[in-house]
């Protein structure tokens, strides 16, 4: 039972926010932590980014592509660009019953949270999954500070 009273003068937005909070709580109760559902990608390709102490990693699903079809570079220390073209296999006869896969050129710019060493960026394409490993620049690496006792 809801313990909040209906207040006729609260705006609709307050009600919607409350509804959203209720929904969030509902999902939390299923054990679905925040961040366990992907957010919708704003552009192609969808990219997952994570980091450890030494590197920043970016991963994208690019089925049917080869490294030669891709252009990957880092500019300005933390701007990662993934560019490429997915070419449709040439078909000169026949009828398409279904066409769900997308083809064509794309370009995506991702701002990384820290500066990386642009010269040491490595990209690997395996089974249609692109993994980019970017070593963090020296200034961005976490430093352990020794605490002296007096």
């Amino acid at each position, binding site marked *: 039972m809801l313990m909040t009273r209906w207040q006729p003068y609260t705006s609709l937005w307050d009600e919607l926010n409350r509804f959203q909070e209720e929904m969030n709580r509902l999902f939390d109760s299923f054990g679905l932590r925040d961040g366990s559902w992907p957010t919708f990608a704003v552009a192609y390709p969808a990219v*997952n980014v994570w*980091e450890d102490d030494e590197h920043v990693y970016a991963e994208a699903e690019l089925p*049917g592509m080869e490294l030669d079809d891709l252009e990957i570079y880092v500019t300005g220390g933390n701007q990662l660009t993934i560019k490429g073209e997915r070419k449709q296999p040439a078909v000169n006869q026949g009828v398409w019953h279904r066409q769900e*896969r997308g083809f064509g050129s794309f370009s995506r710019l991702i701002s990384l949270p820290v500066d990386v060493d642009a010269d040491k960026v490595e990209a690997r394409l395996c089974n*249609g*999954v692109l993994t980019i490993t970017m070593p963090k620049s020296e200034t961005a690496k976490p430093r352990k500070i020794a605490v002296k006792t007096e």
Partner: protein
Amino acid sequence: MAKNALSKREEKRTDVALPEQTRSSAVTYTPRCDILETADELTVYADLPGVQPGDVDVRFENGELAIHAKCPPRHEDVHYLTYEYGIGDFYRAFAINEAIDSDKITAELKHGVLTVHLPKSEAVKPKKIAVKAQ
């Protein structure tokens, strides 16, 4: 106390079959597919990024083509800064109305794209009939 005794007893029973974790991930994704029909065959293309060639199961049974691909998580205990897609198994099935020569079905996986060739059986292939001049 009682719980401890119970867990100890369970530890000893190694001969008892334990429930097996049969699925690596809880979410199954529907892959994007293209289907092309030519005079000789049907060709199904499916995007299965991240799937190893040995992890694809393609079955043709009672006029239904089923594609099931296992895709285990690639990273454990990673805190994502950007999380735009999930990783999991793929499943898709199609009802095929054409008469297919099921012995000649072939499939290959390259760069995360599965291609299944379903050759039509001889009986339904279009035949050109020569017209004789008299």
